[in-house]
Each structure stands twice: as C-alpha cells, then as structure tokens.
C-alpha cells in the first residue's frame, strides 16, 4: 500500500460573543481594576459572577465588589506552559477564592519560587494586565501576597454600574491538526496526480463511487475494488454563477456543473469552460482540462460528441 498522505490543517477563527448583563459588568469591572461578584438569594457571592443561580436557576443581578486578594483553594504546577496560556514560564494553575466571595476563580499564579512555594491556603492577589479591554485576561495572573507589608486591597464598594460597558468579547481560537484522508481518498488523490480519476466499486450493489470515501452509503460495506472512470463524462445538471468569489480569479458568469464521469455511479462537480455559459446544457459531453499544478482538473470542456440521452444519466441527476 502506498504511503498515506498527510497535510497540516489549521482551524483558526475569532469567536465574537455577546455578554449578558452580569458578565458585561464583571468584564467591564476588570477593565477598571474592580472585581465584581453577584449575590444569590441565599446570600452567597459568586465570583466569577454568572447570570443565573447554579442551584436555583434564578436570574441574578445584585452586583457587589469583592477584594482583589484571596486564598488558593487548589492548585497544580504547570512546568510546560502551552500556547495561549496566561504565562509563558512555568506557573501554577489555581482556583482562588477572593476575599468576600464564596466561590473560586480559575487563573494562573506567577510564583518565582516554583512548586515548593505553592500550597492550598496561600494568600494571593490580582496582578492586573497593563492593557485591559474587558476580558478575563485583564487579570494577567495572580501573585503571592504578603498582607503585613503590602498595600491593602479592600473592596471599594463599587455598585457595578459603569459608563461605556463592555458588551462583547472576541476570543481568538486556533487548533492545529495533521489531516490524513485515509486509505480510499489517499488512492484517489494519488491517481489525480497522474491525471487519472479512480473510484471504488461496492462489492454488494456494484456501484462505483467517485470520489471514493471507503464505504458504500447504501450497503454500509467497505469499497475496495478500484475502478478508473472517465476521463469523459456527462453534465447531469448545472448552475450559472454570477457572484464573484473572494480570492477566485474566474470571470463571472461561469457554469458550475454536476458531471457523471463515464463508468461512475455518482456525479462529481466541476466548472465548465470552453463554451459560452448560456450554451451549457444537461447531457453535454465534457472532458477534463488538467491544471499544471496537479490536483483536480482545472475545469471541463465540451468534447464535441452528440449530447447524451437523458435516459442514460437520469439516475445520476
């Protein structure tokens, strides 16, 4: 079996999220170096604050300021920080219960002394980020706090009302993959490099699938017998594209068609050229025009043969 193909695949996009009123106040507060919690009906203060009581599901709205100091309730030592994490040197993950809060906040603890100087119960304080935008990362991290010598961090009694509220966040996300298409599609792509189109036949219903995905969707069995199809085929249906796609150097209007290659039991799609767009029709016989860059054909063009009879391709429309 030929070597399996692999290619890097990066999925990256910014998530734009709107905020509820409690989240909005909390993140605006961080921008202003104020930590807010939300009070529940039974008098607990939740930090970070949520829109609904996790126990009663009652809507919450009473905001209260808590201190920027607190106590570590559990921790873990991260000796190899990963991309996107708050610090790029070894740090402790911590849950911190801020003074005045009844629940704990997850964040990083920057502690130069290493894991030996971290313990549950350690007193810590917020280290604010230099530039703040209204996001959880406005807290750069926590750092150990010496109450005897440090300035006080008592809450200022903020009521949670701000001018210029943050109403949304943009959270970038990126994940890196190495994509491998599997056995059937590897063989298909390798044949394309030789300007051949190779499908696979179902051992049960005998249909030939192009491109092959390794299984017959009707019989639910593996397809393994390779069958070269085409190169010629028949337009089974088509549309006229009038909208210019971004980054695509093709003049509109052009025709995009479903093409049943000779010997295939499934139509694939491709662009039709070499004929005025308004003369393309169902039944038109076409052949591939290969690109010098490899991969799929650049487009299909008329062969000049008489059109195929509808009866010969109606099952593939």
């Amino acid at each position, binding site marked *: 079996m030929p070597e399996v193909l692999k290619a890097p695949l990066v999925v990256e996009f910014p998530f734009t*999220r709107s905020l509820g009123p409690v989240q909005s106040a909390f993140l605006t507060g961080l921008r202003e170096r104020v930590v807010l919690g939300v009070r529940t009906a039974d008098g607990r203060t939740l930090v970070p604050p949520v829109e609904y009581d996790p126990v009663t599901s009652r809507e919450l709205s009473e905001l209260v300021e808590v201190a920027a100091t607190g106590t570590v309730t559990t921790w873990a030592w991260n000796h190899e920080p990963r991309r996107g994490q708050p610090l790029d040197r070894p740090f402790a993950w911590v849950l911190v219960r801020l003074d005045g809060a009844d629940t704990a906040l997850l964040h990083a603890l920057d502690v130069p002394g290493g894991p030996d100087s971290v313990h549950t119960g350690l007193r810590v304080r917020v280290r604010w980020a230099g530039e703040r935008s209204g996001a959880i990362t406005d807290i750069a991290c926590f750092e150990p706090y010496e109450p005897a010598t440090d300035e006080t961090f008592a809450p200022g009694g903020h009521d949670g009302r701000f001018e210029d509220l943050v109403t949304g966040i943009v959270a970038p996300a990126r*994940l890196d993959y190495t994509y491998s298409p599997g056995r059937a599609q590897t063989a298909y792509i390798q044949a394309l490099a030789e300007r051949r189109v190779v499908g696979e036949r179902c051992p049960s219903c005998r249909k030939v699938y192009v491109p092959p*995905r390794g299984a*017959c969707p009707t019989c639910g069995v593996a397809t393994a017998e390779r069958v070269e199809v085409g190169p010629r085929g028949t337009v089974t249906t088509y549309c006229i594209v009038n909208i210019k796609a971004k980054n695509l150097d093709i003049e509109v209007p052009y025709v995009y068609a479903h093409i049943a290659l000779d010997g295939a039991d499934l139509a694939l799609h491709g662009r039709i050229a070499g004929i005025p767009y308004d003369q393309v029709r169902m039944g038109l016989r076409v052949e591939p025009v290969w690109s010098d860059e490899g991969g799929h054909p650049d487009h299909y063009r008329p062969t000049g043969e008489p059109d195929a009879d509808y009866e010969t391709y109606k099952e593939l429309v």
Partner: protein
Amino acid sequence: MPAPRPLRDIAVVAFAQTDHRRTSDELSEVEMLMPVLHQVLAQTGMRTSDIGFTCSGSTDYLAGRAFSFTMALDGVGAWPPISESHVEMDGAWALYEAWTKLLTGDADTALVYAYGKSSPGSVRDVLTRQLDPYYVAPLWPDSVALAALQAQALIDAGDTDEPALAAVATRSRAAAAGNSHAQLRGSVPRGEYAVYPLRTGDCPPIGDGAAAVILAAGERARELCERPAWIRGIDHRIEAHGLGVRDLTDSPSTRLAAEHAGVFERPVDTAELHAPFTSQEVVLRKALRLDEGPDGGVEVNPSGGALAANPIMAAGLIRIGEAADRIRRGESDRALAHATSGPCLQQNLVAVLEGDPR
C-alpha cells in the same frame, strides 16, 4: 423511593470495539468504524436494514472538520435515509437517546456507535474549547491541568495521595493485560509529572478508536442474544459549570444519576467506571459507594478502564459495552456502567445492567 422500572425492557445484545492505538493515519473515520459495525451486526445476525434506529456520538473538534459525522454515516448504509441521530457527545449519551427512542415503541432495535481519532490534533488543547467561553477558555487550561487541580483538592482533603493514585494506575493496567483492545497494558511507569500532582502514569493514553452497541427491546432481545444485558436504569446529570462553584472532591451528579438508575437498591458485582485520570476513580468510588459493600466485592474496571484505552467520544460507550459483555458471558449478574464528559467529571451517566436469573 426505589427508581421506577423502565416502561420497556431494553437490553444491550451486542458490543464490539476496535483495538485502540496511538495513531490510525491509514484509516479515515468511516474506515476505522466499519469493522465494529459489521461485528455487532454479525453477533446478532442482523443486517443494517434490520436496524430500527441509529444514533452516534463523535465530535468535529477532534477531526477539525465541520459535520464530520456525516462521512461516518456511510458505514451504516444511511442511504436511502434511515431513522438516525447524532450527539456531539460520548457514545454513552447516544445510547441514552437510543434507549429513549426504544422506550417510545417507535423502534425495537437500535445501533449505537461512537468513534474518535485523537491523533490528528492535540487533545489537551482541543478539550479547552468545551470550556466556558467567557471566563475559562481564553486561558486555555488543558485537560490535564484541570484534572490536576481536582487531584490536588483530593490530596488536600485527605481522600488520596500519590501512592494511592499510582496504585489505581497499576491495577487498571494490570487488569488490561487481559484486554486485547487496550492501548496501555501491563507494567506502565509512573512517569514524570505531567502537571503536578499528576504524573504521565495518572493520565489516560491518547488514542484512536471506535465502538458499537446494539440495543433491542423485549422478546427481540432474547431472539438476538443468549443472555441480554437488561438496562434496569439509566440516567445522566451535570454539575454547575463553574469549576470554582463545585466541590471537586465529590460528584453529586454521579450520585444522583446512580440513585435514579437504581444503583443503590441492590449491590452490583461489577463497575465499569469512565475515569480517565486516576484521581477521578477516587471521586467515583466515593460517589457510587463502591468501597462500602460487606466485603468490597465490586470488581472495578476489569477491562482496565479509560486508563488503559481512552478513545475520546467512545470510551464511555465502551464502559457500557464492557459491562454488558460481562453479563452476556455470565461473569456478572448486575453491573454498573458509568460515562463522563467535560472537565473534572462535569457530566455523568450511570446505567445498571442485569442478566436474567440463572
């Protein structure tokens, strides 16, 4: 109050799983999945067209592609259209949906499958994307880090210590020596710290794999299987989503699901727990009272559990399948199966399976 008996007797009548491996580059998802689909069909003598309902569990985030589950559907012969559903969750929850479908009487048989290929991406990073997107995900806390926070909380509470965690790992992988599908078997070193206090040996292997189960109702189950594993109860519950709201040393959602599934009404002899990290087994044993029996007679994870093979999205379904297989083979009469999802045992499903009296 005892849990009510389900409206219909529904059983696991077949189970199959792949060998779980670190990579499976040569196989697409459907190519990896198809052999187990064919195995469960062969166990019952059914064809795909005999199946009343099909439900699957998988996630696009492992594949890095939208609607990735649609490709896997080729493997069940989904065209012309079959009665089918999918959950972006572990296959145990797909089984729950299939069970409710059978309860309604709309179908008498169901095929449930799940698969996950972890090898294309970085699971520790991928799993950060399931976290609270406002307060947590922007910090990219990886799955091992969150499990380590829970482990430290257990150590602080005196519920466990590092040697006890190592013993969980050792026992699991020793049990897996008899499981040819497992990825980590026999003697596995404790390793270096991954995220203190968890060592690499406390963490599950990362791997690719798939599993499938067939459910059948009433007499149909007896026709298809000599000793069906009857689902006497099944329920799933979730914790508050804020990690800092929860008591990480306990799992009230597991306990509640277990009560609703009827776990505590009579002792079980076997428990298949979905505890990807050693520390999570400590939490589950406590929540499920597995160490409280007269002679501690519950056999926990005879398959080796998720510490031996943890194909994401399938590992929970495999717990149900392993428990059912013990019953089908006559090695158990009443077994508990548990599945989890999310950070630090966020969501938990518990099922009780029983064989007919012998």
